[in-house]
């Protein structure tokens, strides 16, 4: 007991000594846009080791180089909001001007974000916003305007098929909210007379499982002998469909193409389809670019931090090399049109 007390006393001593004479470099809130100092960006993703967020980091780093800023990625130890609280507190203590965060929960970060902002930190959410608590951050950079996905997919389909023929949709689960929204958008777009020769014959659901998606895709091929195209707005579905087209040889130019063959397009991460594109089974497909999200977040954050722009509806700002971006409701900025992946560029992406 006595020894414990002595050691405890020693620790208190060290603490006191450490805290006493150090007020000079104590973390004081630097005035926003303080003169001459480098902008310090900290990125807190949802979890460590996720290639998607590694892409966001890449974008941030690219922008940081242009801005003369520093970027640090600090992932929470577990993928939950409590863990992000600790990461944010440490980042603020270390010194941070712009916090870019992909939130694990929409409402558990309010206090810690408020605290950070009180100390002069600008907070920009990226990929996942704190929906319903938008007042606790300065702005948000989100993947893509949901309304624009359906039309973009139809556009892609039309360009690949010459706007005619039967096609089917291979989706995720029947109740997947995003996919259903996009499919509804596609159906709406198809009403446009210029797509009148495109005929949606079936929508099937692979539940984002490889096996089920494969079975559903095979069934489509037997059921519809005149099928011209398949659209799959999900990574797993596209991967499975590409596999089926490859083994059956019915892709355009394949051994059993039967004329023009069946084209496949949709939304997927580039790594899922790299091989299929290189082999020519898939010509092109789409997704938003997480790297662009990072780039925009860094540029936007820097402008917000130096008060060069305010996040009001309709306000615009320029991102070097990416054009003009506009704030929609509640300080949200969308990355922009979907990125198209094809033979010419797919090697540049790794997520």
């Amino acid at each position, binding site marked *: *007991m006595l*020894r*414990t007390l002595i*050691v*405890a006393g*020693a*620790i208190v001593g*060290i*603490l006191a000594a*450490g*805290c006493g004479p*150090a007020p000079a*470099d*104590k*973390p004081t809130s630097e005035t926003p846009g303080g003169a001459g100092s480098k902008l310090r960006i900290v990125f807190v993703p949802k979890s*460590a*080791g996720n290639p998607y967020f590694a892409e966001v980091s890449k974008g941030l780093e690219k922008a940081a180089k242009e801005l003369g800023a520093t970027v*640090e990625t*600090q*992932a*929470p*130890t*577990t993928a*939950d*909001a*409590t*863990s992000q*609280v*600790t*990461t944010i*507190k*440490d*980042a603020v*203590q*270390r*010194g941070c001007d712009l916090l870019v965060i992909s939130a694990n*929960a*929409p*409402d*558990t970060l*309010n*206090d810690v974000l408020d605290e950070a902002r009180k100390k002069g930190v600008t907070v920009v959410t990226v990929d996942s916003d704190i929906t319903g608590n938008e007042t606790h951050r300065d702005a948000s950079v989100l993947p893509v305007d949901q309304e624009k996905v359906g039309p973009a997919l139809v556009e892609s389909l039309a360009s690949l098929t010459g706007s005619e023929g039967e096609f089917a949709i291979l989706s995720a689960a029947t109740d997947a909210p995003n996919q259903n929204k996009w499919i509804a958008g596609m159906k709406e777009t198809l009403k446009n007379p210029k797509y009148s020769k495109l005929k949606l014959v079936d929508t099937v659901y692979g539940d984002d499982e490889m096996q089920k998606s494969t079975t559903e895709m095979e069934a489509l091929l037997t059921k519809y002998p005149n099928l011209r195209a398949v659209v799959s707005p999900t990574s797993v579905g596209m991967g499975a469909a590409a596999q089926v087209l490859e083994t059956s040889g019915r892709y355009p130019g394949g051994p059993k193409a039967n004329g023009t063959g069946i084209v496949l397009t949709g939304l997927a991460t580039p790594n899922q389809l790299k091989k299929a594109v290189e082999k020519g089974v898939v010509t092109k497909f789409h997704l938003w670019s997480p790297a662009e999200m990072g780039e925009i977040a860094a540029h936007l954050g820097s402008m917000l931090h130096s008060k060069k722009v305010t996040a009001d509806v309709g306000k615009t700002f320029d991102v070097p090399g990416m054009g003009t971006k506009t704030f929609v409701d509640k300080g949200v900025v969308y990355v922009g049109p979907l990125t198209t992946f094809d033979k010419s560029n797919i090697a540049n992406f790794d997520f």
Partner: protein
Amino acid sequence: MSRRDLVPVGLLAIVLFVGSRLSARFLDAPYLLDTLNLYVEAGLLATGMTFVIVCGEIDLSVASTTVLVACVVSKFLGPETNPVVLVAMSVAIGSLLGLVNGALVTIGRVPSFLATLATMATYRGVAQAWLGPFSAKWPVMKGLDRAHLGNSPVPWPPVIWLLVAGAAGLVLHRTVFGRQVAAVGTNAIASRFSGLPVERTQLAVFALSGAMAGLAAVFLGSRLGVVRHDLGRGLELDAITAVVVGGTSILGGQGSMAGTVAALLLVAAAKTAMGVAGVKPEVQVTVVGVLLVLAVLAGNMAGLARRKAPTQA
């Protein structure tokens, strides 16, 4: 009190020193004290866990208990609730969930590792089934972690935890019940033949662990303002780690509350020091792991060198 608990205290001093070398912003009293708030929940769980482990059992369900209690309380109590009622209810529900664990172990004869592994999944599962992916607003006492002791930079939650741990330490080391816990943990069969209330003791430690988890729910909810089913993942492991590093034998029979407190502070200090220095989280986890191995090894060496009577709690 065993001297093994000096190991974490010594390591804590080293970590504080190294931390101050890594970053000039580490030894900043208001910041460190504020950070301590983040470890209060693990601290309370570890306090209860010390009893369970000294008793020769384990409780893997504590973090899930905390989350379930937090969800139940947020769902049933409104913003006009008296804080005393809220705390009492949280502790009561926690104890009840702990008693379920105790009953599975004593009446159901399920080994505590399995029983609490099952309730760990069940309690969190119930919380998830009930709230779904949504969160519930914490009703009262929001922002307790920003309430300070007078004008000092000392926040209330760590103080409360230390008081609770102090009281728990007295119970463990200075009362008949504490002796019984250690006796049952040393040898349950011998204890039974000596006429000790073995089952009652086991029930009591699980209830105590549940009560601490219930109290932890108050701090978790008050700190975050909202509760969800997925909060505090892995907190049970943090608690067990603190107990074992603090010199409590995982086989039961002996342990030290002071050691648990010191070990928790050690982990908190190490993580914070590295966080402020910008050490990558994956490296942080590794360093904490190595630190823990060192602590346990050092404790064993000390134990081998001295070979004191093992049953002293």
